[in-house]
């Protein structure tokens, strides 16, 4: 029973399961949490592969339709239906892929209403939408021929659709020509961001010609694969005709691409020793040069192996061409790199897997290929009574949903195990660690006038101390080291508040076995509260398992922070008496952000002092500028090179 097709479907269902879970994460927590896309790289794998390459891969539809209906080569008719179906599913995949990439996917219909005549993307959007409708109409007869639709109304629709086949084919060719080329035209607006080996003023022509060649090779590859999986005979004689056509088209593509570069004088760049030139030659050889040469040899294009190799190379190479243009050869600012997150691969692969499953579904149930399908795979109907164990005697209609749904669930569960935490729980705020303060020599000028604050500042140049100033160490408060600092006269505050006795006014809580612990030791993040309780060290310090009851009362329902013994019961010596701010809570779980801590302490004290003794302290003590002085930031930024130099000497 485990035929090739069953194995293929099993693998596809696992991928679809993974895709489903990533989809949930993508649409609940957004692009930032689930992908490596950023403002610098808004166009990643999804645009490069799903949209750019997806549209090109679906080119077989219009190429084969033109071959049979316009050029009248009737013998290729057996390839038309699978090609149209591939194109139809391919364009649906493009639209679905685009939904993932759009920040506001529910606005995807906007181009239909808001016409931006100057936008290439508008043309692409309209063409793709119209062509998708054309493809649906072109494929509809295959569905309507099924016995399920054997009713007068559907028969009439079928007759009409068959009558308008030719206009539909013509419309399809026009629309495809337009948007296959204008996907290339998109890059004309960024001539300096695309690498010269890929940029060309006629890039639209390259995109179109390569799409035609790729379309022919895609139809070939698909026939070979369906021959392998559905075990029917492959008509190599017909396929060799497609191969010869592809050989010519791919040859033309190489001639245009290289010729254009030679005429514009940029071909020299392809012979420089660089990664980009290597990539250029590799891509060009794989997608066109080698297949074109091989397919020109009759013996190769008449063998299944030869056709398989050439079509595989072209498909791989042309996908690479689109991805190169869109991602690899597209310049990014210095220091920014992009490699897709695995979730991006999962979505791209998942869409393809789903499309292949739908393709198989249609092939099994409708007359897509002219060969009769393997009867063993066509389900028969029967009940089953042991829903847990899949029995081999049970018919396929019962086992298939069981097998594939289980694999889908396995895929979904695997995906959730490997999703990054932010993709499951949502993005967490960024951690901005706080560094210790630094001390530097500065000066203080005491203002004699009551109501004016003292002036403090850096000594910019040794020897240039202002008149009447006193040299004193100043503390630079710059927790996140962004250079926007506050100068703090620690000595002056200590003197004013009463010498060493006054430490407790600010240093309200000490680390164990420490005195006057610095602010940053607990307030460890610039903006967010941080956990300051170290459970592991308490477990070690309180004698392991037996020590649990020292903090967690066995009678309490839950062993949690809220029900634990108060910290002050053991760490009473850490709490300083008489600080400016309120006493700490019973349990010290998290400390507020550094900025909030600084403002909370300094401002509170300044306000208190100004209110308590209005005459003695300056009113401006409550203002921002009492501590924040933009000049200090400017002077400090100018001093940094000097500080660095003196450090290096």
């Amino acid at each position, binding site marked *: 029973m485990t035929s090739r097709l069953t194995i293929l479907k099993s693998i596809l269902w696992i991928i679809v399961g993974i895709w489903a*879970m990533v989809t949930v994460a993508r649409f609940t927590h957004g692009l930032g949490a689930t992908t490596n896309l950023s403002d610098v790289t808004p166009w990643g794998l999804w645009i490069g592969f799903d949209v750019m390459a997806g549209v090109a891969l679906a080119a077989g539809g219009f190429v084969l339709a033109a071959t049979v209906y316009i050029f009248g080569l009737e013998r290729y008719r057996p390839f038309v239906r699978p090609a149209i179906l591939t194109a139809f599913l391919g364009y649906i995949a493009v639209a679905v892929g685009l939904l993932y990439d759009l920040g506001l996917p529910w606005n995807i219909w906007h181009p239909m209403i808001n016409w931006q005549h100057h936008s290439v993307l508008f043309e692409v959007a309209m063409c793709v939408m119209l062509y998708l409708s054309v493809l649906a109409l072109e494929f509809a007869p295959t569905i309507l021929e099924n016995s399920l639709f054997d009713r007068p109304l559907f028969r009439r629709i079928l007759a009409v659709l068959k009558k308008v086949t030719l206009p539909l084919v013509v419309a399809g060719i026009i629309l495809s020509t337009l948007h296959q080329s204008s996907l290339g035209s998109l890059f004309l607006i960024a001539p300096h961001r695309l690498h010269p080996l890929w940029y060309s003023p006629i890039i639209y022509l390259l995109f179109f010609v390569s799409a035609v060649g790729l379309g022919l090779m895609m139809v070939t590859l698909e026939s070979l694969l369906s021959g392998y999986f559905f075990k029917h005979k492959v008509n190599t004689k017909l396929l060799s005709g497609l191969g010869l056509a592809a050989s010519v088209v791919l040859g033309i593509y190489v001639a245009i691409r290289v010729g254009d570069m030679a005429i514009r004088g940029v071909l020299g760049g392809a012979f420089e020793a660089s990664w980009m030139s290597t990539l250029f030659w590799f891509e060009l050889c794989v997608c066109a040069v080698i297949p074109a040469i091989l397919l020109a040899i009759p013996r190769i294009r008449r063998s299944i192996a030869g056709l398989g190799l050439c079509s595989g190379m072209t498909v791989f190479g042309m996908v690479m061409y689109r991805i190169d243009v869109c991602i690899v050869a597209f310049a990014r600012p210095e220091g920014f790199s992009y490699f897709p997150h695995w979730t991006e691969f999962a979505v791209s692969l998942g869409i393809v897997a789903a499309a292949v499953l739908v393709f198989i579904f249609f092939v099994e149930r409708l007359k897509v290929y002219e060969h009769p399908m393997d009867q063993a795979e066509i389900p028969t*109907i029967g*009940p*089953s*009574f042991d*829903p*847990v164990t899949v029995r081999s005697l049970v018919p396929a209609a*019962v086992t298939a*949903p*069981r097998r594939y*749904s*289980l694999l889908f*669930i*396995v895929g*979904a*569960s*695997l995906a*959730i*195990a*490997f*999703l990054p*935490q932010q993709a*499951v729980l949502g993005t967490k705020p960024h951690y901005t660690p706080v560094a210790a303060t630094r001390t530097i020599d500065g000066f203080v000028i005491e203002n004699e006038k009551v109501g004016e604050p003292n002036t403090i500042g850096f000594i910019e140049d040794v020897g240039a101390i202002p008149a009447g100033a006193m040299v004193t160490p100043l503390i630079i408060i710059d927790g996140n080291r962004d250079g926007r600092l506050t100068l703090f006269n620690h000595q002056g505050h200590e003197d004013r508040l009463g010498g060493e006795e006054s430490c407790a006014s600010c240093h309200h809580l000490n680390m164990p076995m420490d005195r006057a612990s610095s602010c940053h030791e607990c307030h460890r993040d610039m903006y967010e509260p941080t956990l300051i309780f170290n459970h*592991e060290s308490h*477990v070690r310090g309180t004698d*392991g*398992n*037996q020590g*649990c*009851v020292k903090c967690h009362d*066995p*009678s*309490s*329902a*839950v*062993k*949690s922070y809220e029900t634990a013994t108060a910290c002050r019961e053991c760490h009473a010596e850490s709490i300083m008496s008489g600080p400016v701010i309120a006493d700490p809570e019973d349990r010290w779980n998290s400390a507020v952000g550094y900025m909030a801590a600084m403002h909370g302490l300094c401002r509170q004290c300044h306000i208190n002092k100004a209110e308590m003794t209005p005459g003695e302290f300056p009113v401006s003590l409550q203002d921002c500028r009492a501590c924040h002085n933009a000049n200090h930031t400017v002077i400090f930024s100018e001093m940094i090179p000097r500080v660095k130099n003196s450090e290096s000497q």
Partner: protein
Amino acid sequence: MEALIEWARGPFFWAALTFMVLGLLRHLAITLWDIFRVLRRAGDKNMPYKQIATNTVKWLFPIDKVGNRFVLSMTSVCFHIAVILVPIFLAGHIALWKRGTSLSWPALPNLASDILTIIAVISAVAIVIQRSMAKASRGLSRFQDYALPLIIAIPFATGFLVMHPQWNPFPFNVMFLLHVVSANVVLILVPLTKISHCVLLPLTQLVSEVAWHFPENAGSKVGVALGKEGEPI
């Protein structure tokens, strides 16, 4: 060890929970779909729904069958009550749900949880012993019938030691990891083994009834297939 615990209670737990929920939904969906399909083809489409409902309730609480093997029945009832109540209504578990999803519900008192946990472990072992002692049960039993009660007992035993570290002779972290991992394994086993009766049991009476609703002329078709056309089967 810390990283392992974080993995087990983070990604591994999410994966196991997802697998259990989706797996049970899958069982439900497939069973309902099969019932629907069989009924659509059935010759006799009249179903005694009222009787099925009564039977379902009767078999969910089979009080009149208890006398059959009283001790085993009582052990089984205790096991079920403990295994269903403790994981859902343990105060510590609810605190975790509240922290993660801000959902919470009333909890069992800790003493009740402790007693039920001990009951779960003892009754699991007792079920396995009684199953292996009686000849009739032995004949009906597969490997999973012996293994599952013991596997289910592991998270309960380890959970009890985690709740009472002062009685735990092993390192706390090891016990905690064992508790989380074994519970995850049980979650994964739910849809893959007979534990899936937790959602399928209410449907068994319906399935048994539907099974007798053959397609029209099924009997004569079987006769044809067996080469005994016209003869009584």
